[in-house]
């Protein structure tokens, strides 16, 4: 099974990275719009916020569902270990996603102010919590998990909300908020657009601060995440690229090029997830303090035959997926306006 650097297991590790990156880049901005939702006060502006993500948020979330399905089939040990080990966090995340979907759907169904306020709060809080819990999971995986020889662990809430994990959680919220504010800049016009551009400067500053803190903590407390970079200094291109991408965001915003800023933000997210994957490889779940129990891309994977079949399925399916995703974004391109079928 362990046949050279590029085998099916490695390909599926990369596919998982691409799926999760696509999820972060796409659902990231609509979660960010949710995080900013309460900062704007009028019903009209709040409707513009929700309708800016109206036609796309549901499709964006499918990337998370498909990532879970892909993890289930490609690395069932990882799917089972993380979902059961993170039991409380997974349900917090799922309840947040549930409330969020309902808030978006139900908010516009009644005109009463209290009804709309209730769903505004649900929408915003659940968006922030979704981002935060995703970050908590990533932080715990990066930190390493005490797996037993069955590949299982039971974590208490205290362990799961370890300071490093909380820092990653907050950084995720800051990252998605920045990503969302740039998206809103692309979708709005007039006075609202000017206001959002002002917010974008603060959002970028907050993110850079969180990112710096997270990077320092990672290097100090989780040196294993940077082992590969020390061994192969060529990989330093990636964090360098990441820094340039982040620095490019305010530059493009100042030039009024919101779309280029958005692309930079996407690029920086891809770079960040690449670094996360690089730090883990060839493990997917690192076991600390028992590294011999770690789940790797080999011992946690499905059979080679299944990985091969699923690769064919992905190759057949993905062009279609990209085609509809691009078409939907193309059809709903441009500044958002309220119609009779809007939320």
């Amino acid at each position: 099974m362990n046949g050279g650097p590029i085998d099916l297991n490695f390909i599926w590790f990369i596919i998982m990275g691409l799926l999760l990156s696509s999820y972060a880049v796409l659902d990231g901005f609509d979660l960010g719009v949710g995080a900013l939702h309460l900062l704007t006060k009028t019903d009209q502006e709040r409707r513009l916020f929700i309708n800016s993500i109206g036609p796309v948020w549901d499709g964006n979330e499918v990337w998370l569902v498909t990532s879970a399905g892909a993890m289930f089939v490609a690395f069932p040990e990882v799917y089972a270990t993380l979902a059961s080990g993170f039991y409380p966090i997974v349900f917090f995340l799922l309840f947040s996603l549930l409330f969020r979907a309902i808030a978006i759907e139900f908010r516009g169904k009644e005109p009463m102010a209290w009804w709309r306020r209730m769903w505004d709060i649900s929408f915003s809080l659940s968006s922030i919590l979704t981002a935060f819990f995703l970050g908590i999971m990533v932080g715990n995986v990066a930190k390493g998990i005490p797996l037993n020889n069955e590949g299982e662990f039971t974590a208490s809430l205290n362990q799961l909300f370890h300071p490093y994990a909380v820092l990653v959680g907050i950084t995720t919220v800051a990252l998605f908020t920045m990503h969302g504010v740039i998206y809103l800049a692309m979708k709005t016009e007039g006075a609202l657009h000017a206001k959002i551009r002002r917010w974008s400067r603060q959002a970028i500053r907050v993110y850079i601060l969180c990112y710096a803190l997270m990077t320092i903590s990672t290097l100090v407390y989780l040196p294993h995440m940077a082992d590969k970079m020390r061994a192969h200094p060529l990989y330093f291109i990636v964090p360098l690229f990441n820094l340039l991408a982040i620095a490019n965001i305010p530059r493009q915003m100042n030039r009024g090029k919101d779309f280029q800023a958005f692309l930079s933000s996407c690029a920086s997210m891809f770079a960040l997830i690449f670094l996360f994957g690089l730090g883990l490889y060839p493990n997917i779940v690192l076991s600390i303090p028992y590294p011999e129990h770690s789940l790797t891309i080999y011992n946690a994977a499905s059979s080679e035959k299944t990985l091969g079949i699923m690769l064919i399925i992905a190759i057949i399916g993905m062009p279609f997926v990209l085609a509809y995703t691009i078409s939907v974004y193309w059809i709903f391109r441009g500044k958002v306006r309220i119609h009779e079928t809007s939320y």
Partner: protein
Amino acid sequence: MDLLLLSRIQFALTIAFHYIYPPLSIGLGVILVIMEALYLVTKKPLYLTMAKFWAKIFGLTFAIGVATGVIMEFEFGTNWAAYSRYVGDVFGSALASEGIFAFFLESGFLALLLFGWDKISRPMHFFATLMVCLGAHFSAIWIVVANSWMQTPSGYHIVGEGMKARAEIVDFWAMVFNPSSMERLTHVLMGCWQAGAFLVLSISAYYLLKKQHLDFAQSSMKIALGLALAASIGQLMSGHRGALVVHQYQPAKLAAFEGHFPTGQPADMYLFGWVNEKEEKVQFGVRIPGMLSFLVHGDPQKAVTGLQAFAKEDRPPVNIVFQTYHAMIAIGLFLIFLSSAGCLLLWRNTLFESPWILRLFVWSVLGPQIANLFGWMSAEVGRQPWIVYGLLRTSEGLSRNVTAHMVLTSLILFSIIYSLLFMLFIYLLNKKIKTGPGGHGSISEEGRHRA
């Protein structure tokens, strides 16, 4: 309480609640496709009004279906980790295929269906609706394939031993076309079409009784009645074929359906009854002697395997399977009667003036929902004590690292949230029905409400 029981209750609750919605989306999807096609062919504005109104109801059921469905994708791992490790190679393939082939298709074109009325041309909109409907059907295909593999596993081999044993695919197509998947898929899809058709019948009959939106209601009713009759009759036939597969591959389940204990003897069919599991017999029942033997063998004298052929620990709970199975059939027969009577009255031009049957139609929306729930209960409880029939026991599939306390907490949260969600759903559905379709006036009225 016991971890196994709590985990089973939680899965049953979350899947049963979820399953209220996808059948409505699948059935309404078919009806939307028919309405938009009629509009494209005839250009009658009424069909467009109809499509727009039912699309709103569709949007509501779809949203809750997605929101509650996301949870299911993770619940195998959270509560059934050992099961997930055991079947990931096989079952995971079907689940991941559902994501790639169905969910993206549905969610992408759903945006066009709901928000695209003025963004794209009418034929393009019809295409979007068709794709959403197709996506919903693909979703049913993959999830039924996955579940059917748990009923009649094939195309796999077992690798490893003891705790490390797991199923791996040897033949993908044998896994997809396992012995029960196609029969069960037909049965599930017919149930979904019934759910959508009877929802449309119910709301249309309500309008007719209230003397509101008459043209709209009559036209909607005609379309839905055709689908309801076809699906209800088809359901009886597909159910019979499905039972033959159960007889061949899951004899303990078939025996539980009819409370048939003695083995090597002809089996009866009960119209109703109560299973005394201790004394291993059916009490207070009305039976047709030899009918089960006749249905599976074409000969009332031939023997059917009874529950006594199985060790006690290998038998499913009998009474609950018996009751849900019989209630499902009773409702199914009633729906055939109701849709045939509706068609007959329509043919004699008296349907819209017959309040008694319109009242029955108003309540008929519950029929497919209850029958779908009971059908799944008899299928899933009838598979017990196995999570994968004959291979892995339900008790062996649990997450061993999760505590009963954790499951109890999430179960309580689910119960509260889903109760509230259901009340909100009924409230909003009721509001949409009260607002009604109507011409342009009431559509922009709705628009102002939303604004």
